[in-house]
């Protein structure tokens, strides 16, 4: 475990030494801020209109959480599609380019620890990104009642989704010494997974169900409404396990071929 933390700490230091962490954090807060303010002002407008029309208000089942926060949380999957490949691209690719991976692989260090340390570093960075967005429920709670259990479920969902996205990126990074290729490969895989949903529209019922299940972004849908569905949790964890397993194999293959 000590080794995992050592690797993780160096990666985090490296993120903040290079501009990557600042670019990603900046883009994240900017985009999420736009989504939140849009959603927030939209809700203000709707609630003013509904205030003049109590009859319609009674028919509409909206709460501050579902009207303001849900769209913000739902947009996370699209933002992550673009940002996670940038976060993960350098993890192994840079070490391969510099040749430092050769040194690391001759250290008394298990491949699994190396991988876990690298993955943990981006996961912590992502957790930091999520933590920043906690200001949005906090702002809403100043003006209205926030359903905190729903928010908690949404954050768990976003953490799992992000973790699955990051594991795809880690895997792609373990394939190549070129960071651009690593980012592109991760982006393509994630995009393909998003497109599954569109393909499902024109497929037969059985195939459509399979395609929808493989569509990674859809697995956030329940969580942001406050529903923790074990199918979602298991799917996202499986993506993690599969990708990290493949990354591990890729490291082993690298040893053989070098």
């Amino acid at each position, binding site marked *: 475990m000590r080794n995992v933390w050592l690797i993780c700490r160096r990666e985090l*230091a*490296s993120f903040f030494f*290079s501009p990557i962490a600042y670019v990603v954090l900046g883009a994240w807060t900017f985009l999420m801020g736009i989504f939140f303010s849009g959603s927030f002002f939209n809700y203000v407008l709707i609630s003013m209109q509904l205030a003049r029309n109590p009859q319609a208000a009674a028919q509409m089942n909206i709460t501050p959480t579902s009207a303001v926060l849900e769209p913000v949380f739902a947009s996370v999957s699209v933002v992550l599609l673009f940002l996670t490949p940038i976060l993960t691209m350098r993890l192994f690719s840079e070490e391969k380019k*510099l040749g430092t991976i*050769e040194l690391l692989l001759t*250290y*008394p*260090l298990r491949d699994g620890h190396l991988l876990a340390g690298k993955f943990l570093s981006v996961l912590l960075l992502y957790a930091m990104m999520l933590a920043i967005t906690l200001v949005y429920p906090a702002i809403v709670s100043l003006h209205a009642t926030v359903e905190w259990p729903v928010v908690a479920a949404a954050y768990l969902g976003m953490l799992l989704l992000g973790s699955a996205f990051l594991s795809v990126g880690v895997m792609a990074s373990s394939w190549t010494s070129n960071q651009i290729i690593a980012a592109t490969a991760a982006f393509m895989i994630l995009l393909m997974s998003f497109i599954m949903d569109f393909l499902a529209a024109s497929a037969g019922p059985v195939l459509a169900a399979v395609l929808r299940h493989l569509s990674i972004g859809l697995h956030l849908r329940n969580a942001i409404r406050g529903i923790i569905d074990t199918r979602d949790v298991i799917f996202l964890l499986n993506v993690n396990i599969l990708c990290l397993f493949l990354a591990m194999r890729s490291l082993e293959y690298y040893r*053989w071929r*070098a």
Partner: protein
Amino acid sequence: MAVPAPQAGGHGNVIGRNAEGRHGPLIRVEGLTKHYGNVPAIQDISFRVEKGEILGFLGPNGAGKSTTMRILTGFMPPTSGSAWVAEMDVAEHPLEVKRHIGYMPESNPLYLDMTVTAYLHHMAALKGVSGRARGEAVARVVDSCGLGNVASRIIGHLSKGYRQRVGLAQSLVNDPPVLILDEPTSGLDPAQIIEIRNLIRSLKGSRTIVLSTHILPEVSMVCDRVVVIHQGRVAAEGPIDALATGVQKEDILRVSAIGSAEALRAKLAAVPGVRQVSSLGASNGEVHFEVRAEQGREVRPDLAQAVPAASGRLTELRRERLTLEDLFVRIVSGEHKVEPKVDKESARA
């Protein structure tokens, strides 16, 4: 794969930590073969390194030096054959072996975004040096590798010579009994090469060092013994002097004298034991000859007397020693095959 019993007798040295009380070579490589796809990089490489020895690993670029070293360090597995470090099979106890080894790859990879001290601390921690011992270890290698005045600078801003020292410091930071250095002086300027060489020589005695190079003088200056690798095979092995005499079939002497070239040549050729006299031309009134004589036969006194006999005056008479360059070229060009000293039986074990 059975681990052969440690050899009794031989060198009485106690080998490195964690293997106290056992005897034998600190590094043993037997029948190592590695294929990249269908291309064989090394074939049936075997050698041993005793404790405290500096072994020179010599060969042209692409001969398989780096591949052998990478297998020794546990970076990659061999296709067949095995390597032992401190009586431990690299393939079976990779983590334990890696604790015994300090390695500096050919490209000397470093984290360019870290300061020298932070880098060495990080690498020491990964090697399992913890707590106060780590601070001491880092201070020790910073001192011994002459990094004192750049300790707080970022590695990416350092010159190549300093980076090389950081690489060496990294390999030394956990005080390993075995050091594996892949072309530690490549790409340095002459002054830096001398510094790094001195540094390596200063490590002698306490550590077993395997050093690869294609710079020949380096080997004669630093190493006790050489293994010459050519086209993935061991072409020759042994102390440099022994290799030189093994390759040399005849003694070569240089004779310079003032006098008639024709008369001198005739008299020199008539000396018993001389096989061939060839003229190397004349300069400043002197004529120069290369004399090839039977190996081991002392012909110098007779040659010296042959010059006045031809009415000449001797200005120079010396025995040419086969240089490492000659040796290398001869081994590599296949002019002379030196039987590698390999224990074939144990290689098959």
